[in-house]
């Protein structure tokens, strides 16, 4: 009998961005929840870039918020600069990004965790997952304590067998010198789980006082703040913002890097993990894009009460002396004092095709996982998975069906479907181009898309949900009205159009038609529409988008209809692919390994052809008939 023996419903391992969301979701669904962290001082730590959001990641945060997650609220509390990227582009790619005060972000999240009912925080290293008959029953910590539970959510981030490397220095620690988790991998392997080894990296932090900002371009935040959380109003979030700064590398920087490449652990083969192609180290950029004369360097504050500045664009694993030389070759950084070195980090993660779309392991019932452990990268990707893993772990304990978002419902759906369907061989990052229905998966309509699901789960309260329902009603009603109301080609109309640099009318038209013109908006034609109701800014935004891009949007909605048909064709969990005659061998192997839940998911596995899908459909039909006749 172990010296400690406690009982919980759900245990979350790791209190990073995934773990926090998982634990909060579970506790908020009234389940007795325990969350382990390797250090109480590293809850919701941001060990790399000091910001949240950005292209497609901003979408994820909005979706997390619409489902009742915490990330959006937490960044709204703690941002020190906010910016809507791609504002001049279409609404589908508008992307909100905020610089965080890292310490505040961490502290605020910890505060929320510590004050959530049913939730217990515990410092300690989990070393073993306890399972009986392929079912999770608890975890064991490094001290031998046993915590029994019905479900476990693994959110170990980059800590499993972590190793930080620069030059010939190699430290067996997690990020920021925190201790690594060195036992759990073996326990997972003994449960039959296949592990990958990935790597990522971070740039140096430099003392603000040693930077000459006069040689750099100032990057200010937006004057009008857009909140991440749908529960916040823009006017409540206006605050003084802190600038970022832009400078560039030059030929000299590149020369320093090139002449020291032989000392880089990446190029000497000392690091084996697979790195992400989308955030290459500066040495990677110099080698792979040799004809580029300079690379951008963004100097970003790590917080209000620190002088540390993050050197965005120059992550590296070169030796310390080379780091000094290379950073100091950049204008404004001539006298730079490094506070923390840049380093690369290697860590164990899983092949996520071992997971169901619910993020539960196929092989171990009740074992869920989320975040970088699943082979993704980024705080937002982690939080999104953590939330879904936490929700589904809780639903499992409650004996309910899991919640699975599909690719037409959210970026979260795209993210998880990609992870569990395509064998990703590098840390996976969200991109808007991965979302095939992105015109309808906008950050501005995440509440309209997902609040109902959040409400059904039990994470969005009645009042908040009613608000969304009302918003939707107003949008639909007003669009219908605008499509109806006719406008004649009279003098008043022509004059207004002329004043707005818009072509005069040849015949009568509707208000909606006018809004469709690129140069006009709902607001611009107010004078022609005295009957219009009073509507909020958010409602008007939806009206503009829906009317202006109606053609493209309805095309995508039609594609979604087709898509849904294959998603709805479920494949029985116990299907024996060897019994499906005429599948090609490659398809049979892939299907047997990944065991997709629907024909739609099967069709996205590389190596499964349309003919294989036809064969599968025919087989399922036979199966269905045979089952029916047995009953």
């Amino acid at each position: 009998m172990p010296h400690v023996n406690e009982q919980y419903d759900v245990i979350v391992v790791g209190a990073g961005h995934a773990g926090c969301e998982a634990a909060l979701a579970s506790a908020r669904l009234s389940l007795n929840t325990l969350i382990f962290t390797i250090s109480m001082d590293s809850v919701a730590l941001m060990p790399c870039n000091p910001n949240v959001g950005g292209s497609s990641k901003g979408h994820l945060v909005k979706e997390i918020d619409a489902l009742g997650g915490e990330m959006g609220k937490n960044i709204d509390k703690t941002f020190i600069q906010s910016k809507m990227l791609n504002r001049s582009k279409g609404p589908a790619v508008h992307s909100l990004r905020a610089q965080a005060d890292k310490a505040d972000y961490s502290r605020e999240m910890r505060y929320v965790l510590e004050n959530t009912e049913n939730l217990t925080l515990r410092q300690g290293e989990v070393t073993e997952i306890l399972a009986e008959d392929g079912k999770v029953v608890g975890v064991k910590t490094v001290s031998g304590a046993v915590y029994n539970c019905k479900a476990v959510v693994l959110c170990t981030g980059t800590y499993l067998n972590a190793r930080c490397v620069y030059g010939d220095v190699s430290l067996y620690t997690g990020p920021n010198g925190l201790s690594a988790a060195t036992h759990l991998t073996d326990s997972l392997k003994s449960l039959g789980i296949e592990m990958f080894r990935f790597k990522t990296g971070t740039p140096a932090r430099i003392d603000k006082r040693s930077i000459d900002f006069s040689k750099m371009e100032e990057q200010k935040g937006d004057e009008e703040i857009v909140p991440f959380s749908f529960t916040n109003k823009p006017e409540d979030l206006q605050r003084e913002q802190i600038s970022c700064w832009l400078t560039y590398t030059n030929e000299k920087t590149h020369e320093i890097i090139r002449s020291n490449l032989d000392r880089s652990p990446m190029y000497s083969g000392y690091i084996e993990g697979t790195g992400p192609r989308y955030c290459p180290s500066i040495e990677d950029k110099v080698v792979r894009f040799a004809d580029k004369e300079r690379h951008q360097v963004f100097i970003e504050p790590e917080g209000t009460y620190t002088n540390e500045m993050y050197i965005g664009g120059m992550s590296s694993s070169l030796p310390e002396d080379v780091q000094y030389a290379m950073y100091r070759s950049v204008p404004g950084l001539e006298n730079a004092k490094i506070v923390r070195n840049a380093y690369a980090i290697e860590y164990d993660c899983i092949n996520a095709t071992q997971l169901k779309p619910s993020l539960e392991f196929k092989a171990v019932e009740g074992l869920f996982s989320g975040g970088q452990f699943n082979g993704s990268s980024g705080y937002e990707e982690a939080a999104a998975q953590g939330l879904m893993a936490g929700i589904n772990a809780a639903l499992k304990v409650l004996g309910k069906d899991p919640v699975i978002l599909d690719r037409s419902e959210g970026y979260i759906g795209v993210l998880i479907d990609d992870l569990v369907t395509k064998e990703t061989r590098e840390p996976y990052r969200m991109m808007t181009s991965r979302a095939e229905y992105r015109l309808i998966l906008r950050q501005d309509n995440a509440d309209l898309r997902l609040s109902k699901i959040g409400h059904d789960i039990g994470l969005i309260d009645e009042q908040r949900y009613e608000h969304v329902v009302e918003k939707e009603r107003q949008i639909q009603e007003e669009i219908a009205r605008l499509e109806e109301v006719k406008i004649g080609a009279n003098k008043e109309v022509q004059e207004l159009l002329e004043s707005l640099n818009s072509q005069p009318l040849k015949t009568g038209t509707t208000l909606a038609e006018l809004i469709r013109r690129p140069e006009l908006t709902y607001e611009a034609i107010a004078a022609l529409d005295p009957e219009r109701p009073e509507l909020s800014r958010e409602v008007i935004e939806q009206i503009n988008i829906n009317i202006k891009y109606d053609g493209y949007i309805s095309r995508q909605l039609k594609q979604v209809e087709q898509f849904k048909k294959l998603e709805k064709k479920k494949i029985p969990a116990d299907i024996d692919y060897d019994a499906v005659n005429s599948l090609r061998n490659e398809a049979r192997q892939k299907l047997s390994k990944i065991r997709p839940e629907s024909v739609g998911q099967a069709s996205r596995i590389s190596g499964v052809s349309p003919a294989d899908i036809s064969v599968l459909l025919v087989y399922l039909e036979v199966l269905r008939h045979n089952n029916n006749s047995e009953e």
Partner: protein
Amino acid sequence: MKTDTIAAIATALNNAGLSIVRISGDEAFEIIDKIYVSKNGKKVLSEQPSHTIHYGFIKDGEEVIDEVMVSIMKAPSTYTKEDVIEINCHGGVIVTKKILQTVIKYGARIAEPGEFTKRAFLNGRIDLSQAEAVIDIIHAKSEYALSSSLSQLKGSVLEKVKEIRDSVIYDIAYIEAALDDPEHIIIEEYTDELTAHVNNTIKNIEKLLASADNGKIIHEGIKTAIVGKPNAGKSSLLNNLVGEDRAIVTDIAGTTRDTLEETIQLRGVVLNIIDTAGIRNTEDVVEKIGVDRAKKVAVDADLVLYVIDGSRPLDKDDYEIMDLIKERKAIVLINKSDLDQVVDIDEIRKLTNKEVIVISAKNNTGIETLENTVEELFINGKLSFNDEVYITNVRHKAALEESLASVKQVLMSIETGMPEDFYTIDLMNAYGKLGEIIGEEVGEDLVNTIFQKFCMGK
């Protein structure tokens, strides 16, 4: 399962009898209403009772394509249990193809191989015991369509399509990289370059489309091999067949000429003479084709024209060739009737069991008989001719047209000031459609191109 509306030619394609174009799916009636006109111009087929047949015309806008009988069958009492329309037309390859094209233009898509059968099965129309047979059909047809689609695509066209696709994916990757990382990759500087690329892409696709109409995209016709011993008169025969009025030049401007074919037309029957590279320049290439060569060529061919020099006695090689063509569609030509004849025609007829025609390529005699024989073979369907070829062509053309429309939409979007992220929606559509022609899927192409070509941040 997709339940969009599909169409295909349901009968064997030849120049005789009736042909049927079959449509199945939710939009079958919507489509037929747009392209069918009754004699008095008033009948709307979607308003007619199910399982009736109607006389009228198929029109594409103002252009009348053919006089037809249209059978309408409403779901669920149909082969696929969906709305089904069958257009019975006068037959003839060109007209049938044109009707199919029109149906596609107004919203159907070409059925995948075996798709009607698949739908019939999945909708419970076909007995479960036939599941294996259904799977076999899907498989056989898929493999056949893929191999025929690729083998019929001319090498130069394949290259051209790949080239266009590369350019398109680069543009998409540029825009997407900029949208993904707007602080590192600036899109505003790219619009002019993009416009130039898009214009160029439009030109290239239009060029391909123009050649599609002349049958220059795929090997459309009967793969024909002329075999025989050296000096039997093979090249004279070909030169004779490829007269001024018959020759079709096969080049697509600006692309490498295919090496493997010469297309000739006999009475409307298209013959692709295979493996005769450079035949008109180097007279003796064909003459070098010995028995070994003949064997190889004959295997690939739908039709073998075996030329014998009637003025010389048969030898070992001749018997070998005759043995070879016994199991194949072939016509035996006894050439050089202008010289003294020493071969025994009856013996040859007996050995080959084929039509034997006496000709003189030099004096141009007997050629008409040959033409009659080929026409007969074709029209009466004695020759198993590859229907899929025509479908492939329609499929390719539809894909080219769709990609062209998509790319043109990009230009429109640029002109009307639509945001950049809309460009990639249409470009991606074009990329996918072009991929269908050469049998390539989109997969991870975009993400790979982005990472390969553009330096992302952090």
